[in-house]
C-alpha cells in the first residue's frame, strides 16, 4: 500500500540519488577524469530531455485522442538526428568554436554580438518555455493527484497548488545546487548531464515496463492490442484518428524545429557537447531511444481506453493503468519515470534560460551601472553572475508556476507543448540563416524574429489563455474591430487550418520573408560580416571539435610555446617550479586545470589576456580560437603597434633633436671661429698703431733723431697713431652697443638739409684736405624727419669722409641726391671715383673690411659696419649702389611719424 509519505520518501530518495550521481560526476570532471563523461551514450541519453512529461504522459493522451499523430513529435527529432551531418554538425562546430553558451548567445554572436538579438531570443525563449515548465509542474502535480484520489482513504493531498509550489521549489533548489555551483567558461555541467542521463534510463525503463505489463499483462499480447485498436478507432469521434496530411507535415516540421531551438535542447545538443564525434553515435542511438519511448504508446492508449472508466484522463493512463490493477511497484516506477521526465526538463531548461537571462539581460544592466569601474570591481562579477543565475532560475520556475496557476492546469498537455514549440521555432530562420547564408544580417534577424514572435503570440499564445483570457470571444471569432482578415486563427482569410499549423505557417513564413528581405536590404557591420564568415564557413577552417581534454595537451608543447613567450630559461624555471609544486621531477608538470590557469595568467602578463588564452587554447586543441579571441588579440596587437609607432615617433623626435643639436653645435663652432677671427682682427687693429707708437717712442727715448724736423715728425706719428687707437676703441664700443641692441635712440624733428649741413660741417677738414667738391640740390632736401638725427648724421659723416678719403678721381666730386619713393626717403652719395670693385661690394659692410690697399686712410674698417647697424636701428637701410659712375651709397629712411624708437633690440649672437 503506497502512502503519501512513501511516495514523498521515494521521491526524496530518488532526488538524493540524483544528487550523488551529479556530485560524483562533477567531481570526476573537475579532476579531469572525464572519459566516461565524454561517452556518446551519456550524450545520447542527455538528449532525452526532449522527452518531457508531455512525452511520457501526454503521448498516450495524444494517441488516445488523435491516434498516430503523436509520432510526429518523435519524427521531427529523428529526421534531424539522421541528417546530423548537414545541420547539427555545423551547429555544434559553431557552438564549440565560438564558445557559445546558449541559443541566444549563438544568434547574438552570429549577428555581430548584437545584444538586442540576445535579449530578443532570451525573451522568446522565456515566454516560449514558461508554458512548458508549467506543463511539467502540472504533470507532476497531476500524478500526485492520481495517487491522492485513488487512496483517498489512506491519504489526501491537501492542496494541489501547494504541491506545485513544493515541486517548483524543490526543482529550483536542485537546479541551483548543480547548475550554478561554479562557473564554467564553456557553460558545461557534467554533473547535471550525468543525472539527466540516469533519469533518461529511468524514463525509458518505466515506460517499457508499463508497456510490457499492458501488452502482455492485461492486453492479451499483440493480437489483443490489435483488437483493442480496432475497437478504439470505431469508438473515436469521426475523423479523430484519420491522418491529416497538413497537420502531420506541420507537426513534424515543428518538432524538428523545436528540437533545434528549444533552449534546453540547444543546451544538451550544443553547449554540453564535449566531442563532436558523439553526434555520430547519437544520430542512430537517439532515434532508437525515441522509438522505444513511443513503442508502447498506442497499446497503452487503446488498452486504457478499453479498460479504464470513461472520462478517465488519457494523459495519465501510464499511471492509472498500473494503479487500476493494483500494481503499486509498477505505478511507483511509472511515477518516477514521469517525475524524471518533468525534473530533467525543468532543470536543463532553467539552467539554459538562466544562462541566457543572466548573460543577456542581467549582466549587461549590471555592467552598465558599473561603467568606469576599476578592474578590481570586476572581480565581483563572478559572484554577481552566479547570483544572477540563481535569481534567474528562481524567477523562471516562478513564472512557470504562475502560468500553471493562471492557465488553471486544464489544458491537454500536448496542446501546451505545441504552443511552446511554435514559439521557440521562431528562432529557426535566424539560426539556420546565420549558419548557411552569409548575407543574413542583424536587421533581418531582428525584424524576422519580432514578426514571427508577434504573429505567434497573436495567433497561438494569447488565444491559448481561452476565450475568457486575453482575447475576447468576439475577437477570436470576428477579428479585432470586426476585421475578418485579422482573425487570430484565420489570418488573411485562411480558414479551415488547424490552429497550430495555421499559426506555425503564418508566423514562420512571414518570419522568413521579413528576415530575407531585410537582410537583402541592409548592410551588415564589419564585425557582423566577420562573424558571418566564421559561422557559414566553420566547417572549412576548423577541425572537429574535440573535448578540451587536458591530458591530450602535452606539457612539452606548452613548454615550447611558453619558451617563445617568456624566454627559454625563465620558461624552464617556471615549469620546473610548477612540476615541483605537483611533487614531480623534471620540467613537465601535469596539465591540470589549475596549472593551465596559472600558465595562462603568467603569459597574460607578457602577451595580454586574450592572446594568452588563444595560444593555450590552440595548443590544448579544445575550443578553437573564437572571433572574440581574435578580435581581442587584434586589439592587443593594435595597442602594441600604437606603442611601437609612439616609440618610432619618439625616435624620430630624438633624431630631429640630435640633428638640431648638431646644427646648433656647428653654428656655435662657427661662431667660435668667427669670434676667434674677430678677436684676432681686433688684436691686429690694436697692435698695429701700438707698434708705431712703441717704435717711435723708443727712438725718442734713445735720443731720437738728430734732425729736429724728423723728431717732430716722429712725435706727430705717435700722436696720430694714438688718435687712431682711440678712434678704433670708440668705434668698437659703438658697434658693440649697436649690435647688442642696447643703444638708446633720441628721435627728434629735424629737416633733412639741416642734418646734411651738420654732417658736411663735421667733415669739412677732410673735404678741404682732399679738395672734394660736394653737389647738393637743396630744394629736394626740405624733408621733415622724425628720427635720431645725430645717428643719421653719423652715417652721413662716414659716407662723406669715406668719399673724400677713397675717391681716386683727380677732381673729387660728391653728389648728394635726395628722392622720396613709396613712403621712403632715399639719400644717395655718389662720387666720381672708380668705386668699389665688384668682388668687394658684398663685403664692405662687414667689420674690418677696409679695402686693404687704402689702409693708409686710417680707418679701422668699422665705419660702414656701424652705418649699417645705425640704419637698421632707424628702420632704414644702407646699400652700395652698383653701376653708378663712381662709388655710390644709398641711405633709405621711412618718412612719416611711424618709427620704432624706444624698442629694445634683441641681442644678436651672430655679432659676438
Amino acid at each position, binding site marked *: 500500500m503506497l502512502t503519501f509519505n512513501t511516495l514523498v520518501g521515494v521521491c526524496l530518495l530518488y532526488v538524493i540519488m540524483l544528487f550523488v550521481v551529479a556530485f560524483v560526476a562533477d567531481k570526476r570532471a573537475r579532476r579531469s577524469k572525464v572519459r566516461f563523461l565524454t561517452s556518446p551514450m551519456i550524450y545520447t541519453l542527455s538528449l532525452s530531455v526532449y522527452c518531457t512529461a508531455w512525452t511520457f504522459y501526454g503521448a498516450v493522451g495524444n494517441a488516445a485522442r488523435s491516434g498516430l499523430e503523436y509520432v510526429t513529435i518523435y519524427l521531427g527529432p529523428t529526421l534531424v538526428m539522421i541528417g546530423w551531418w548537414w545541420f547539427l554538425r555545423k551547429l555544434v562546430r559553431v557552438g564549440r568554436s565560438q564558445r557559445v553558451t546558449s541559443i541566444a548567445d549563438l544568434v547574438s554572436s552570429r549577428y555581430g554580438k548584437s545584444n538586442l538579438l540576445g535579449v530578443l531570443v532570451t525573451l522568446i525563449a522565456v515566454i516560449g518555455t514558461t508554458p512548458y515548465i508549467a506543463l511539467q509542474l502540472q504533470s507532476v502535480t497531476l500524478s500526485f493527484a492520481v495517487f491522492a484520489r485513488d487512496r483517498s482513504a489512506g491519504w489526501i493531498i491537501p492542496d494541489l497548488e501547494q504541491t506545485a509550489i513544493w515541486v517548483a521549489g524543490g526543482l529550483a533548489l536542485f537546479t541551483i545546487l548543480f547548475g550554478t555551483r561554479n562557473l564554467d567558461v564553456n557553460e558545461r555541467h557534467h554533473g547535471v548531464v550525468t543525472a539527466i542521463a540516469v533519469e533518461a534510463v529511468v524514463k525509458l525503463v518505466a515506460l517499457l515496463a508499463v508497456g510490457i505489463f499492458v501488452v502482455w499483462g492485461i492486453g492479451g499480447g499483440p493480437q489483443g492490442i490489435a483488437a483493442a485498436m480496432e475497437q478504439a478507432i470505431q469508438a473515436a469521434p469521426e475523423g479523430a484518428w484519420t491522418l491529416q496530411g497538413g497537420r502531420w507535415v506541420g507537426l513534424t516540421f515543428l518538432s524538428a524545429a523545436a528540437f533545434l531551438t528549444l533552449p534546453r535542447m540547444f543546451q544538451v545538443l550544443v553547449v554540453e557537447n564535449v566531442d563532436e564525434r558523439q553526434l555520430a553515435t547519437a544520430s542512430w542511438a537517439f532515434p532508437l531511444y525515441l522509438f522505444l519511448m513511443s513503442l508502447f504508446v498506442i497499446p497503452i492508449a487503446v488498452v486504457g481506453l478499453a479498460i479504464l472508466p470513461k472520462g478517465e484522463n488519457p494523459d495519465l493512463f501510464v499511471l492509472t493503468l498500473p494503479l487500476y490493477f493494483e500494481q503499486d511497484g509498477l505505478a511507483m516506477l511509472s511515477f518516477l519515470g514521469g517525475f524524471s521526465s518533468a525534473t530533467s526538463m525543468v532543470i536543463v531548461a532553467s539552467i539554459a534560460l538562466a544562462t541566457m537571462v543572466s548573460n543577456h539581460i542581467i549582466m549587461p544592466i549590471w555592467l552598465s551601472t558599473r561603467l568606469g569601474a576599476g578592474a578590481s570591481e570586476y572581480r565581483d562579477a563572478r559572484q554577481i553572475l552566479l547570483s544572477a543565475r540563481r535569481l534567474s532560475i528562481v524567477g523562471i520556475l516562478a513564472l512557470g508556476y504562475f502560468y500553471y496557476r493562471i492557465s488553471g492546469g486544464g489544458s491537454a498537455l500536448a496542446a501546451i507543448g505545441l504552443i511552446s514549440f511554435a514559439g521557440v521555432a521562431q528562432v529557426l530562420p535566424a539560426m539556420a540563416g546565420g549558419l548557411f547564408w552569409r548575407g543574413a544580417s542583424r536587421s533581418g534577424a531582428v525584424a524576422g524574429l519580432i514578426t514571427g514572435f508577434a504573429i505567434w503570440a497573436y495567433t497561438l499564445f494569447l488565444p491559448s489563455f481561452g476565450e475568457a483570457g486575453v482575447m475576447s470571444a468576439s475577437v477570436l471569432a470576428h477579428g479585432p474591430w470586426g476585421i475578418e482578415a485579422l482573425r487570430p486563427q484565420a489570418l488573411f482569410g485562411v480558414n479551415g487550418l488547424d490552429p497550430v499549423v495555421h499559426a506555425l505557417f503564418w508566423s514562420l513564413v512571414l518570419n522568413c520573408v521579413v528576415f530575407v528581405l531585410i537582410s537583402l536590404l541592409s548592410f551588415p557591420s564589419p564585425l557582423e560580416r566577420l562573424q558571418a564568415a566564421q559561422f557559414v564557413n566553420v566547417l572549412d577552417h576548423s577541425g572537429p571539435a574535440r573535448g578540451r581534454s587536458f591530458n591530450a595537451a602535452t606539457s612539452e608543447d606548452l613548454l615550447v610555446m611558453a619558451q617563445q613567450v617568456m624566454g627559454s630559461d625563465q620558461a624552464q624555471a617556471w615549469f620546473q617550479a610548477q612540476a615541483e609544486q605537483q611533487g614531480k621531477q623534471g620540467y613537465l608538470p601535469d596539465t591540470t586545470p589549475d596549472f593551465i590557469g596559472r600558465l595562462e595568467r603568467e603569459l597574460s602578463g607578457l602577451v595580454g589576456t586574450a592572446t594568452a588564452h588563444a595560444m593555450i587554447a590552440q595548443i590544448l586543441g579544445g575550443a578553437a580560437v573564437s572571433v572574440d579571441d581574435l578580435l581581442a588579440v587584434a586589439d592587443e596587437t593594435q595597442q602594441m603597434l600604437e606603442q611601437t609607432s609612439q616609440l618610432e615617433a619618439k625616435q624620430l623626435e630624438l633624431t630631429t633633436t640630435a640633428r638640431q643639436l648638431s646644427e646648433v653645435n656647428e653654428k656655435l663652432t662657427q661662431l667660435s671661429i668667427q669670434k676667434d677671427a674677430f678677436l684676432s682682427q681686433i688684436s691686429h687693429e690694436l697692435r698695429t698703431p701700438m707698434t*708705431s707708437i*712703441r*717704435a717711435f717712442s723708443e727712438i725718442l727715448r734713445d735720443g731720437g733723431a738728430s734732425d729736429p724736423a724728423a723728431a717732430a715728425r716722429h712725435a706727430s706719428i705717435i700722436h696720430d697713431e694714438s688718435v687712431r687707437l682711440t678712434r678704433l676703441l670708440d668705434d668698437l664700443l659703438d658697434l658693440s652697443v649697436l649690435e647688442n641692441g642696447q643703444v638708446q635712440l633720441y628721435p627728434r624733428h629735424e629737416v633733412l638739409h639741416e642734418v646734411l649741413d651738420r654732417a658736411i660741417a663735421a667733415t669739412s677738414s677732410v673735404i678741404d684736405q682732399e679738395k672734394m667738391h660736394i653737389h647738393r640740390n637743396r630744394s629736394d632736401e626740405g624733408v621733415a624727419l622724425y628720427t635720431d638725427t645725430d645717428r643719421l648724421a653719423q652715417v652721413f659723416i662716414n659716407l662723406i669722409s669715406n668719399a673724400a678719403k677713397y675717391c681716386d678721381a683727380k677732381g673729387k666730386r660728391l653728389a648728394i641726391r635726395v628722392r622720396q619713393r613709396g613712403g621712403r626717403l632715399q639719400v644717395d652719395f655718389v662720387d666720381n671715383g672708380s668705386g668699389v670693385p665688384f668682388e668687394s661690394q658684398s663685403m664692405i659692410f662687414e667689420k674690418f673690411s677696409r679695402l686693404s690697399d687704402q689702409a693708409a686712410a686710417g680707418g679701422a674698417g668699422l665705419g660702414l659696419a656701424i652705418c649699417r647697424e645705425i640704419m637698421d636701428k632707424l628702420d632704414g637701410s644702407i646699400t652700395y649702389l652698383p653701376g653708378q659712375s663712381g662709388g655710390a651709397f644709398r641711405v633709405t629712411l621711412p618718412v612719416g611719424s611711424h618709427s620704432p624708437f624706444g624698442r629694445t633690440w634683441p641681442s644678436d649672437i651672430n655679432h659676438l
Partner: protein
Amino acid sequence: MTRQVLVIEDEPNIAEAISFILSRDGWSVSTHASGTTAVQAVRDAKPDVLILDVMLPGKSGYDILQDLRSADDTRALPVLMLTARGQKTDRELAERLGVNRFMTKPFSNSEMLTNLRELVGG
C-alpha cells in the same frame, strides 16, 4: 760692408720706424708695401736679411715665405717675421714654413736689432 735689409710692411708708419732704426744702426734699408709683388722685390733687392709682415695686401707673409723657401735663390735667405696677430698658431705656422725669427708687434727696437744681427752672423 753694409748689410742690406728689405722691409716688407704695408703700414707706412711702421715701415718708417723700422727704416729709421735700422738706418741708424748702419743697415742699408729698402721697403716694400705690397704683398703681391713682394717676392719679385726680394729677387730685385737681393737683401742679406728680410723683415716680413704677415698681414699684407694681396698676399700674406706666409705665402711669400713659402715661395721664398721653395725657390733656390731665396731658400737660404734669413727672414724675420713680424705679426700683429701674436697667437701661438701663427708662430707655429711660420716656423713650419722655415722662418728664422718671429716677432710679435709691438716689438722692442733693440730686440729687433739683436735678431737681425744674429741672422746675418755679425
